[in-house]
């Protein structure tokens, strides 16, 4: 019962968060000095008559006052419409779903890999605290935790795509090939480098977190007891440690979805991978209000749900945590 109330409270909070995100994003776009008509025309801005500019302003609704635009957008949202993107000339929902499908492949595989690999490395390092292996793993984690994603991406691209030629230079498929002709293997080949880059970014925090948990366990009474019964470190790590450290790791993984999302935007720019990241950059630079708000909402929802799952997991692990103000 209390859980239901807590969930209801969280959902209410989520709605409020989404509203604030939308209002803030809208305010930022309105503050942006970019003239939406010029942004729309791009290089053709010097070919269009004054009459045509007026027509463009009218057609895409660039001239109405900010409050009216926002109100209009909110009304649309309540009727289940995200509006119309002037950059892509299609409904915002279509733009997002088309591109998110691409992004989720990248994001999903990177997330899974970083959870699995990060957790395994953390367990190993924690179980063998102080060993050479531990030092190598934690050293690696500290270095990658402080490496900028875009830099890693560019270095990877130079090394593997340009210099060695092992991986494709860009895009989600080979040139000249229809989508339905592209095999799973080729898709994966094109995903390999961006996913690897993004994974390297995600591994570090999970590794370090898991390692700390494992070290705590290894020093706990449970471990002392097991050692007394003749169990080896590996036994303990395997039988107690994994259970002990897996939920926190998963929690952290859900909580770090936001970072991963941010990383993915950068990665997509570098690898010319046509996902949501590229659309976000376009929408921001060219004042596509409905699209930018749509993406902001969508991202906020995605990250908030990740956080909600993380919080719920915490409650499962440790009921002593306060259940909100209720």
């Amino acid at each position, binding site marked *: 019962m209390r859980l239901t109330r807590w969930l209801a409270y969280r959902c209410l909070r989520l709605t409020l968060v989404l509203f604030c995100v939308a209002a803030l994003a809208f305010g930022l776009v309105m503050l942006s*000095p970019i003239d939406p008509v010029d942004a729309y025309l791009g290089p053709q801005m010097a070919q*269009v008559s004054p009459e045509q500019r007026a027509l463009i302003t009218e*057609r895409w609704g660039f001239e109405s006052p900010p409050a009216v635009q926002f109100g209009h957008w909110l009304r649309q949202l309540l009727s289940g419409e995200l509006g119309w993107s002037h950059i892509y000339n299609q409904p915002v929902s279509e733009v997002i779903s088309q591109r998110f499908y691409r992004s989720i492949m990248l994001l999903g595989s990177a997330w899974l890999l970083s959870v699995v690999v990060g957790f395994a490395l953390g367990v190993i390092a924690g179980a063998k605290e102080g060993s050479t292996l531990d030092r190598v793993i934690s050293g690696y984690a500290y270095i990658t935790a402080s490496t900028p994603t875009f830099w890693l991406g560019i270095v990877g691209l130079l090394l593997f795509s340009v210099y060695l030629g092992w991986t494709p*230079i860009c895009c989600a498929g080979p040139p000249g090939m229809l*989508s339905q002709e592209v095999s799973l*293997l080729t898709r994966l080949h094109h995903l390999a480098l961006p996913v690897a880059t993004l994974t390297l970014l995600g591994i570090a925090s999970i590794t370090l977190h898991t390692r700390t948990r494992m070290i705590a366990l290894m020093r706990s009474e449970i471990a002392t007891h097991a050692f007394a019964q003749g169990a080896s470190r590996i036994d303990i790590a395997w039988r107690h440690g994994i259970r002990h450290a897996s939920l926190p790791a998963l929690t952290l993984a859900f909580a770090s979805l936001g970072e991963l999302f941010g990383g993915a935007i950068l990665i997509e720019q570098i690898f*010319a991978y046509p996902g949501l990241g590229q659309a976000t950059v376009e929408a921001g630079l060219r004042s596509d209000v409905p699209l930018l708000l749509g993406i902001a909402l969508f991202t906020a929802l995605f990250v908030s749900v990740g956080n909600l799952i993380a919080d719920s997991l915490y409650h499962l692990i440790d009921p002593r945590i306060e259940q909100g103000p209720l």
Partner: protein
Amino acid sequence: MFRYQRSILLGLTAFCLAFNSPLQAKEQLVLAIGGEPEQGFDPLLGWGQYGSPLFQATLLSRGHDLAPTPELATAWSLSEDRLTWTLTLRDDAYFADGTPLTATDVAYTFNAASSAGGRADLSALQAAHAIDRYTVELTLKAPRITFIDQLMTLGIVPAAERENGYGDHYGRQPLGAGPYQLVEWQEGEQLIVERNPYYYGEPPAFERLVFLFTGEDTTLSAAHAGQVDLAALPPALAANLPTHMQRVVMESVDNRGILFPMQPASGEHAPSGAPIGNDVTADIAIRRAINLALDRETLVDVALHGYGRPAFGPADGLAWSDTDEAFEAPDLTRAHTLLDDAGWELRADGLRYKDGQPARFRLTYPASDTTRQLLAQVSADMVRPLGIEMQPTGRHWDEIQREALHQDAIVFGFGSHSPQEVYYLFHSQHAGFGFYNSGYYANPTVDRHLDAAQTAADQETANQHWQAAQWDGETGYGVRGDTSWAWMVNLAHVYAAHRCLDVGELGIAPHGHGWPITANLQTWRWTCD
């Protein structure tokens, strides 16, 4: 399971094939020249204004000398009052779905485009009517000879009321009577097109075209990896080409020049809030001296890596531009004399002064554009020995609009296939509107010439008037007249093309590097077997 293995094998084979082009008849051409229209391939919203519209056919096309040549229209005439174009259509044009293209489709296209609010500018059109199956009438609001541009660039779409007609999704499923039809558009990545079997003209040499929408660096890497047959290159990267490729240079009127504020500073502001006027550049002696001081050959070498030619006007070498605008420069002696005679005295600090006003002003350029930055800095150095100090200042476009547009000298780039641009740049009615006549240039005689051109009976007559606006023997916007600009260079657009690709006789490109090269796509050939 077996099906899976097969698809993996197929994928692998295709993958290997993609990396070595087989030496049989070349069926597929891969191009990386940018130009992806995010809105899709919708002519009503501006697709096809440059280069080949690929999917759609146009009424006329620009011949090699930019003169109109027949396409869908076999005959055309302009009425006595210059308000009505009457065009006769060919009867063998079909859309890619096999249905005939008639006057109804043409009228629909023009009417819809004039209210679409996209990049295609048909604001001059009153209405379009289908007179009979193969005759169409286009009526204008006012005489405007440059409306012929729209006949050459607006791709014809199927009328909305027919089956497969124009609709909201047209941009992503274009249907036209052009040489190619869409196979697949992977947004943000590539476009794959194949021959349209119903095309009325000579079938193009390549069955399939692939356009990659990659960034500069990726394009270069792909060219080195042998995956691209034609790539647009920035001049800075044109030095180092893969061995199987050659450089193709396309001349252009994509120009760069210095626009001068023509009015003295009066404390007035434009509607945008930007202050108007500059006391130094308002003096014709200063403008002429700067024109004389610029060493345009050096500007081409330094800022464009040699890919370009000197510029003396907005449309060098085109039919509506006076051919005698070029002059001997640099000529610092003449420039010094000019300034002395105009009362600009050189003082000990190396600057000239007139009535206590130092010859100093900002030369503003968009900060993101490295070529313009170089042009601004080098030209400032060239002018400095005269005692004139141009201060190169990089700003964002928006800040330029709010602050600098009408009071600083600005490094602008223009260049068009149409004389309409000349009208925008120099007619006083466009003063202070957007990026057009932003120096508030106003000369009643020039206005008269420009209006006479718009109301001319045909392009040849119009061209004489356009030229007179530049210099009519007495006055003009050009260097012999009011010297409203100091034009610097015309860029050349550089491409890397496979040694076996013959791109025929390239025309002259407008402002914008990339897609315009496809203007003569129909004539491209593969010369190896």
